[in-house]
């Protein structure tokens, strides 16, 4: 009956459940827990070099040649670093299950003396909280980096389609099966099939295609945008390294898609102007 259930008169329910910190310490002292954690750390340190190896592989052809590419690499570095703890913990459980708890073969199942763990609130909450926090961190990081890259590349912010700074170089990029053509409207519409760019000067690309969808990928500059027929897409970059880099087509565009690539020559601003004049384009704007 309800009226007999007066809480104040009830003695407090006896509980021999030790405090949380004590239980955590007890848990950490278990043999398998220690082993799993040690294996996690070992695998984590084995995976750690990946943070740099990934970037080393990306830089084999001479990059990064722009701040955008540096941002991209920073993102990849951070993502690798953040995903290592969870990955190595899962791998550690796999390893310990294989070699620590081990298996039994045979035609009949092993004895039913495994602990019947149906669920564990602490594990579920910890896992959910950790993975949500990590995902949240990655989302926030990604949004901030994306805003940064967008600001650096004029891509989505320029509603007018005009470069933001006075001295920006405009290049009209045209893809067609299977060549790239680069036109410099500020230099008497000089046209070239190699992309010549000045160092440290913002460049705005107006990208389009004459036939099918191509993808303008300046590999070491870290920019990529589809070249669509009947539409102009925009992107931009400020090269900060002198050298020879690659443009590749990153969207299957038919027969000779594999050969639709060309070079980028990034040169000092002075050299670039001289070069353009020699190619027949006085600076008109």
């Amino acid at each position, binding site marked *: 009956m309800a009226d007999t259930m007066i809480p104040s008169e009830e003695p407090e329910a006896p509980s021999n459940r030790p405090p949380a910190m004590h239980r955590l310490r007890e848990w950490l002292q278990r043999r398998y827990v220690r082993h799993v954690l040690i294996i996690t750390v070992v695998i984590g340190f084995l995976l750690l070099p990946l943070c740099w190896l990934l970037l080393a592989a*990306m830089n084999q052809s001479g990059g990064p040649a722009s701040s955008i590419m540096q941002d991209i690499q920073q993102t990849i570095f951070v993502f690798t670093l953040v995903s290592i703890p969870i990955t190595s913990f899962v791998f550690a459980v796999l390893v310990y299950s294989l070699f620590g708890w081990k298996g039994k073969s045979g035609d009949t199942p*092993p004895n039913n003396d495994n602990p019947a763990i149906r669920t564990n609130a602490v594990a579920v909450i910890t896992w959910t909280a950790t993975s949500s926090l990590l995902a949240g961190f990655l*989302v926030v990081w990604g949004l901030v980096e994306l805003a940064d890259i967008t600001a650096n590349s004029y891509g989505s912010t320029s509603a007018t389609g005009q470069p933001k700074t006075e001295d920006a170089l405009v290049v009209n990029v045209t893809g067609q099966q299977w060549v790239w053509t680069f036109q410099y409207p500020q230099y008497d519409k000089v046209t070239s099939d190699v992309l010549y760019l000045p160092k440290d000067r913002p460049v705005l690309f107006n990208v389009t295609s004459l036939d099918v969808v191509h993808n303008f990928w300046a590999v070491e500059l870290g920019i990529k945008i589809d070249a669509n027929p009947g539409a102009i897409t925009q992107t931009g970059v400020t090269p900060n390294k002198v050298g020879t880099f690659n443009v590749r087509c990153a969207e299957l565009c038919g027969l000779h898609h594999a050969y639709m690539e060309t070079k980028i020559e990034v040169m000092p601003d002075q050299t670039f102007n001289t070069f353009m004049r020699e190619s027949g384009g006085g600076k008109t704007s």
Partner: protein
Amino acid sequence: MSTATIHQVEVPQPKQHGKPGGIMRHLNFFTGLISGVVLALVFGYLMNIQFAAGAQTANFSSASANPTFWAMMVGWVLGFMAGMGAFVGPIRWLLGRDLTHEDAEFMAGKGQGKFRYWRFTTDHKVVGIQYLIVAMIILGFGGLLAMLIRTELGFTWMEVFNPDFYNSLVGTHGIAMIIAMIVVVSGPVGNFVVPLMCGARDMAFPRLNALSIWLLVCAVPPLILSLLVGGIRDGWSVYQPLNSQAGPGMIGYQTTIIVFAVSTALASVNIMTTVLTMRAKGMTWSRTPILIYGVFAAAAMGLYAFPFYMYSQILSMTDRLINTSFFNPIEGGSVWLYENLFWLLGHPEVYVILIPSTAVILELIPVFMRKPLFSYYMAIAGIVGVVGLSGLVWAHHMYMTGWAPQANYPFMLSTEMISIPVGFLVLVVIGTMWRGTFWSRLPMMAVFAVIFNKMIGGVTGIYLSDVPADQFFHGNMFVTAHFHYMLMGVALFGAMGGVAYYFPKWTGRYLDERTGSIGFWTAFIGFQLTFGSMFVAGLQGQPRRVLQFDNMFNISNWISTVGAYTIGIGMLIFLAAIMSSWRSGDRAPSNPWQAQTLDWQTATPVPLENFPVLPVVTKLPYDYGVPDPLDPKTLEKEYDEKVGAPT
């Protein structure tokens, strides 16, 4: 009209006309094949006459061959399905001749021996096995194409194939594998196992079930034939307007997709209805095995996603045939419209492949760990979360299209959120492994392989979901490696585990452990070589779908090619294990894994209506390692815990 007594009520029964089955006695796969080919030729001939006034040639690569090829495809589909007997049911209804009990039994394949596998058979067990065989044939075909692709990429100093044929290889490999992977788990497991696991006598719509498998069979030949008439040179995504440039082979692709989408929709409706309405008494939503949730979720997602694919291909087809200009920018169409329609399918479809495989893994891991599934509700939450989010992420394939750069922000958010429910599923697996001694058999090996691959595929997926990183990886070998880790590393290896697990139920025999394991691990090692080094090629900057590349990519491509051949050898060994075990493996009892789900509680081979008496469910089927409460040992242990052990 005869009558039958059901529940003490006289119910009128339809009259039997002739022998049971009627005309269905004479129709089978071979009559379907013949009538399909004949009708295709007739239709093609008629259409050719129609267009013969112009400068029509018999050259299939000319664009004017399009209508002829289209007519042949229509003829093939109609002829094959008619020859199979797919239209007999509707015609019966028109004539007012309902099926008698004997007719229905004939349709279910009673007393026809092995030949029932060649017929329009309604029994869900027959359909399941048919799905398995068809999926294996398509996988073999796609795998062969993969070997050819890697051969081209391994000989880095020359073109082994001409670029046209190479591009066709890439496209056909892609779509063949996608089709095969969609049906490889949902087909055999969804049709054979799910009704058993629900405790039902058959699927909800048995004749629809037969229709869906034979539509799938019907969809495959146009795809293979299209290689002969220009092929699919544009990757499996066949972006417009490149699509319109291709030869009439593209019509083969479009026919395949349209027919396959119908087949998938029918199968999805069937599975969903079965799960919703035909679960055994007492099988509430909190006692339903996780595999049923997985297959149900995949079916629901397929039902949502496949219409987009079908529409995109129908519109492409009308663009090609009658110049409707949906996707042709020169005439006012939009390439972004196509890309949106395509990826509205494209991303949910990935989970249509992944979720059933993951569910099979979740289903078999408690059996082999002899432990309850860790946090059953979290597994459900994971599946539901993935399904819910998967409809909202398609534009992450379009980050770099310039379509709507502002949309990149929300799509990046939704895509990265998917890692949370996927993480739930990983926790369920490692939680079930925690502190358990596993039963070291072949299906259990698949769990280790799948979780390993899933972590690699999942983490690399996070890079791709992030727009800045994707700015480097989009259209790059890194993407190829990533989705192979998910679709092959998780889904196909999971499916192999599922085959090993259900093999005793399907065939009454064990899958040979030794040969099977050798094949499985060979394929696994080859897989790591192939796609691990493909990640490196991607990081170095190799674009996808190229047949020639700079010298800097040579080494990683050589390793990939060696790995691909290793996968091929491993898969052949696994196939040999399947074939030899099917014919002469060790006999298995009806419940060899001592599993608790309903599918193992019936006899092997499963009788025609599955259960002599329909079962009643009282608990979740994952009570492993739980001591029997009335066992004296349990009571003793409980006494020790509560009162204290005698010292």
